[in-house]
């Protein structure tokens, strides 16, 4: 099931073909390397645009969010078996 986190994270990534690709993120004191982005979506909440990435890091699945208005990153949820 997905466990709700909603905590800020710090993200490092690259731009490729005019698209941002997150490569690693720091959550609390852990640095997590992203091995795969399984899905990314543009979502909208009123006029606030957000980009959701589902990423695999160290064999865990994380749902992370980039708020395109505030330019802040958040860890939304983690998959726990």
């Amino acid at each position: 099931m997905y466990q709700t986190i909603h905590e800020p994270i710090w993200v490092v990534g690259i731009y490729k073909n005019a698209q941002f690709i997150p490569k690693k993120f720091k959550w609390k004191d852990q640095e997590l390397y992203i091995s795969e982005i399984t899905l990314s979506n543009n979502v909208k909440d009123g006029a606030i645009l957000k980009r959701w990435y589902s990423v695999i890091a160290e064999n865990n699945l994380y749902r992370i969010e980039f708020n395109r208005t505030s330019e802040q990153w958040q860890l939304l949820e983690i998959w726990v078996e």
Partner: protein
Amino acid sequence: MEKTILHVDINSYFATMLQQENPALRGVPVGVVKDAGRTCLIATSKEAKLQGVSTGFRKKDALQICPNIICVPASFERYLDTTKRLQKVFASISPSIYIYSLDEAFIDITDCRKHLYPDVHLLGKNIQEHIKNELGSWVTCNVGIANNRLMAKMASEVAPKGDIIEVTSKNKEALLASTPFKDVCGIGYGLSKKLALYNVYYPYQIRFIPEDELLALVGPFWATELQKIAYGEEPHGLSQLDREQPHMKSVGRSITGYRLYSDPTEIKHILRNLSLEIIEKVRTMHLAGRHISIGLYGQADSWSTHITLQSPTNHVFELLTQVDKLYDQWDHSFKVIKFSVRLSLLHPQQQDQLLPAWQKLESVQKALDTINSKYGRFTAHPAAVPAQKDLIHPEVTGFLGDRLYQLSTE
């Protein structure tokens, strides 16, 4: 000229997207619930279907036949985005597409087949590849190809997962003789029950019901429709899709609670939440409605009532006041599990009215619209409605009844 229509349908869309997102869910039975805590499965993965668990199952019944099923909440915002991307894929193939639901579309390639797509089977394969590139490698779809929408959809319904079937003169009759009514577009449950009285379970068999008996059984409209379907011709219901869609005649919202409710304050809050969603939607669609109805459903009882206004409204305060008034007519004789509110007799929004009272409401509503569109849905709300965290967010309906609203919010 004979037409060429493709019907493309993502396999188990809601569940497949969750599996694409999360490798832990791939290859295992997945049940999709509307929200955490909900017990009704609104979709299931192909692995769950293989074990006999399908849409509409209760979680606990599903667990009995399929103990390893994993239930995951749907992610409607994502589906809306993936549907928009699918739409782009379809639009890149032909200018003539019809989005039939969130995950399926008819693509008419009649005019471009000769020059662009001489090999339709190859086109089908390319579409499947294109969708994998766009949405992810786990995502598969069926493609049905035929000279009309009825047969194209029938072919994609019965095709094995991820397959392409082209209907030709060679396999058409066999398809009509072997496709059960549940997989035939346009034949609903009620109609199939009636036909079962004649031991008719497949379109082909309809040919053998004497005309007068068919007429007596289903009436003139359906008799003609069924005759067409029996021979694999497109029924009226599907031909209608070529017409411009009229705007929606009503907008309704309903929700099933997590438990039984008896506290009038709670029940009112829920009805108000639903009303707020309705207003947000009709305003986006530039419509206003004159008929308001509310419904409350218990485990065995239900109650509903309605009112018709003199002039159409799309103002939240007016709707809330009317809904409250309607609610006050209820005798509280049972505990409530399901709630619904509907605004109907919708008309395109008229020019501004000159009444001062109306103008005041409109200016307040416009201010609310502005705040909500700038800072997120339901940031601002009337004091009578609880704050955001308790609100129910709009959902994406499977059958795009509100396709204009859902897909035109770029």
